[in-house]
């Protein structure tokens, strides 16, 4: 099968009783880019967190043809690259290079190779020097790109992006967009930036109170829900 993400009837309830997912069905094919649109609090982030088993709900969920269960978590986390909304939350190493090399090192690569790969990926996202700076001093756009590099360094099969453009100015958005368009991986993108979503994803899925309310060509979805200013 060529489904990288295959969710059927996924349900999840937070400890405090919030029903965040009430039966989500979604199929993502190899190399496909899908935008996840929907109002605040509709459960988009919660859904993404299931895809590498950080949250575990009821229902059927397979990622890269593996069920998301404890024995496969390590493999799945290596195949799923997760870019969080706020890059501050994911940059925690003392220097850029170390941060990007973190994933490969965790995956067991020897240090020279991990750093070699980190350098390559940093160049790929357009950060050609200053690799020994601490991430603290970077601008929002640079942080976002370093965070993406950290994910690409583990050579994932799916990219999960949670509001990746929040702090970026339009040119930085375009750079990110162009970069993403060259990447062959399947992508699942949560965003409130409709222009970005339009440019990146032909297909969109609309979340509404923990369910998928619509799935189809992005222009149609945006029109139907009047999802633009």
């Amino acid at each position: 099968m060529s489904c990288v993400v295959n969710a059927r009837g996924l349900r999840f309830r937070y400890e405090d009783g919030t029903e965040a997912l009430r039966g989500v069905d979604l199929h993502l094919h190899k190399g496909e880019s899908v935008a996840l649109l929907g109002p605040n609090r509709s459960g988009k982030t919660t859904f993404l967190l299931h895809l590498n088993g950080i949250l575990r709900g009821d229902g059927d969920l397979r990622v890269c043809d593996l069920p998301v269960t404890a024995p496969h978590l390590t493999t799945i986390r290596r195949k799923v690259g997760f870019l969080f909304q706020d890059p501050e939350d994911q940059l925690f190493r003392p220097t850029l290079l170390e941060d990007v090399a973190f994933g490969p090192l965790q995956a067991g690569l020897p240090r020279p190779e991990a750093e070699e790969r980190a350098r390559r990926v940093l160049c790929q996202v357009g950060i050609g020097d200053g690799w020994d700076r601490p991430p603290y001093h970077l601008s929002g756009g640079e942080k976002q790109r370093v965070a993406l590099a950290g994910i690409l360094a583990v050579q994932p099969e799916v990219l999960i992006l949670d509001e990746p453009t929040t702090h970026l100015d339009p040119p930085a958005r375009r750079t990110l967009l162009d970069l993403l368009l060259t990447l062959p991986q399947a992508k699942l993108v949560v965003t409130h930036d409709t222009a970005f979503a339009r440019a990146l994803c032909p297909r969109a899925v609309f979340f509404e109170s923990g369910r998928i309310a619509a799935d189809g060509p992005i222009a149609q979805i945006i029109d139907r829900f009047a999802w633009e200013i």
Partner: protein
Amino acid sequence: MAQRIGRSHFVFDEWSRLRSPLHRLPPPLKLLSTLALLALTAAWPGAWRLFALAPVLILLARLPLPGLLWRAALVLPFTLTFALLTWWAGDPAHALTLLWRSYLSALWAALLMATTPLEDVLLAARRFGAPRLLVEVIQFTWRYLGVVAEQAWRMRTATLARGADRSFEISAASLAVLFSSSYARAGRIHRAMAARGAGGGA
């Protein structure tokens, strides 16, 4: 308490904004009577009789009895440990006393918090001489508890997603990042306060 700080931690806040005769009493009065009840419970060997009073008050306040009883039970782990020790040391009577005393005391405190919003309790404490700085720090801490906790959770999630095993060094790095971003947040809050006319200088 090393778990996620979620909405269940704000249940007192929900309760304290209900309406009942007890909710309507002036907060300073409630604070004083809670302290008096606590002192009575601490000193009177027959204070277990007050267990009859507690449900009456809870029902009068139109609060869910099981919910409140459970909240008060949060003291039990500590209490049980020391009660067992005391029992072991050969004083079962005292062990029992420790158990009911601390549970009843927790119930009084819970009742106060379930009928009075925290800010009103603090206002009352201020009237009784609590330093202004302390009260303000409590307010800020309570306000930003959920915000910073949410961020801590996101950071933990992000490290997991990048395949990190839990390790001492990574936890330390995460805390350091959380610390410096809290520092930056404090700066932004101060700016927002200044922009709305707080204090004189910049």
